């Protein structure tokens, strides 16, 4: 087997390399076409505006929207905040200070923090929030949302695909339900848009966040789809100023970033079907090879209803951070507490019932456009070797092999 160049990048759910075609499209806007698109009375402004308009068309074409429905932001975190906070404040049932609940919001416990934290802030400010708890497969269904609906539900925010386990929620069905009930529907599409086919009409979406750097575009730029008709969605602005982006997001436009995002969307539209098919085969090869060589492995989340390029595997009896150290030439992520600032294992894995010890033992490997079969083979070998080495070191593996039931041991908690 030929050794691929090291290190190997298998963390595409964290971020992706910028496509050279994207960089090329952006470059003139740094040095030559540097105008402010808000400058309406000279050619510098018009040129910049033209770049932004093209990007808006490219984004709209990718998601099946009208270009007037695309709002550019600094990224998906800002989009989520603008959408959730903006919709809650616009559609509240009772004003702040009235002493009555301001309105009910439904989201899910395994959302990204950029959704959970705005919802928690609204909760403190008098809104009521239901955090749905998906079952072990990690999928949020329309029935779960339906059962949580109340007369005062104003907003549902459910991510399209989960960033840690890649599971795909019933977005189209949840959107249909929301439209039937007259409830605003937001989805965080950060891991989905640009990877999988998206049509905001057919998928019944009112608000959708997405990001540039997850789809081979630049960092620091993203977008929010805001539906303009059937129904027209209004948002209370949370950043006030020059009224750019139809008042949804004031601030001089990040023209270079926006041009890059547009180009990335254009490329994604052309390539994503081929990418998804190829990466699905590679991912299956990775999972099959690892599980054929190692016992006590668990693939987390629904086996079919998940993104084709991502896998999250728990390796019993080894700890995730030490596993990542052992495969240091492979860039990936772990649900281990030791890789996070909080010292808590992944709340996503814990929420779907992955035991704490297996949550500590997980690796997230996410493949991308440049991932090769050689890289995957190298990774499989490295992971298998590392897990075997760490199991040699693991007192838990010994105990397990001695027939001791680890769940019945009285551990000295500290």
């Amino acid at each position, binding site marked *: 087997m030929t050794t691929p160049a090291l290190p190997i990048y298998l963390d595409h759910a964290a971020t992706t390399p910028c496509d050279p075609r994207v960089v090329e499209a952006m470059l003139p806007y740094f040095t030559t076409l540097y105008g402010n698109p808000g400058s309406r009375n000279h050619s510098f402004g018009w040129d910049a505006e033209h770049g932004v308009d093209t990007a808006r068309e490219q984004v709209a074409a990718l998601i099946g929207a009208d270009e007037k429905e695309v709002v550019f932001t600094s990224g998906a975190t800002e989009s989520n905040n603008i959408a959730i906070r903006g919709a809650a404040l616009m559609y509240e049932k009772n004003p702040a200070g009235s002493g009555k609940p301001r309105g009910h919001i439904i989201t899910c416990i395994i959302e990204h923090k950029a959704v959970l934290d705005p919802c928690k802030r609204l909760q403190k400010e008098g809104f009521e929030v239901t955090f749905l708890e998906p079952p072990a497969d990690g999928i949020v269904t329309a029935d779960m949302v339906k059962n949580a609906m109340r007369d005062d539900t104003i907003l549902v925010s459910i991510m399209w695909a989960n960033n840690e386990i890649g599971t795909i929620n019933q977005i189209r069905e949840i959107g249909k339900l929301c439209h039937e009930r007259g409830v605003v529907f937001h989805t965080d599409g950060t891991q989905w848009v640009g990877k999988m086919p998206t049509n905001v009409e057919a998928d019944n979406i009112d608000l959708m966040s997405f990001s540039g750097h997850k789809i081979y575009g630049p960092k620091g730029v993203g977008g929010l789809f805001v539906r303009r008709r059937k129904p027209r969605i209004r948002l209370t602005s949370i950043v006030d100023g020059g009224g750019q982006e139809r008042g949804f997001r004031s601030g001089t436009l990040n023209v270079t970033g926006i041009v890059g995002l547009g180009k990335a969307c254009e490329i994604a539209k052309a390539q994503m079907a081929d990418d998804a098919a190829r990466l699905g085969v590679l991912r299956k090869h990775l999972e099959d090879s690892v599980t054929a060589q190692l016992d006590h492995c668990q693939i987390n989340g629904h086996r079919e209803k998940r993104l084709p390029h991502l896998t999250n595997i728990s390796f019993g*009896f*080894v*700890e*995730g*951070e*030490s596993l990542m*150290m052992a495969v240091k030439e492979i860039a990936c992520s772990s649900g*281990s*507490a*030791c*890789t996070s*600032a909080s*010292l808590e*294992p992944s709340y996503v894995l814990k929420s779907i019932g992955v*035991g*704490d*010890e297996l949550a*500590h033992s997980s690796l997230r490997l996410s493949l991308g456009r440049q991932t090769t079969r050689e890289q995957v083979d190298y990774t499989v070998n490295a992971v298998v070797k590392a897990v075997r080495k760490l199991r*040699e*070191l*693991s*007192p*838990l*593996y*010994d*105990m397990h092999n*001695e027939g*001791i039931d*680890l769940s019945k041991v009285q*551990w*000295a*908690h*500290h």
Partner: protein
Amino acid sequence: MAYGPKIIEHYEKPRNVGNFGTTAEVKNRKDIGVGVVGAPECGDVMQLQIKVNQSTGVIEDAKFKCFGCGSAIASSSLATEWLKGKSLDQAAEIKNTQIVEELSLPPVKIHCSVLAEDAIRAALEDYKTKNGVASSAAATAH
């Protein structure tokens, strides 16, 4: 996490990995003291075994196994090195702060050194209990 060279070195070439027998076997051996601390759901379990020369009271050998992060593995590997050749009283004086210093553990990893100190104390206590020796230094609870 960017680790210092000593942690990496211990992690990559851990010293004294192993045990002096299965859980059941070492339970009945009076010359072996066993300490198992931590919990799987906390992401750290350290198992430390000391083999004591029963006539001299000197720790002749020490072995460890560890489920945990790189710092936990390095801390327990270092502990086994330090334990060898020490008397029980000398061993009881090993402090977590010395481990922190030796390995240059980052602040978020100090609990790994605490766990190693706990494991040492637990192994000493186990040996003393098995041999009916009065505990000279009461184990500090963390």
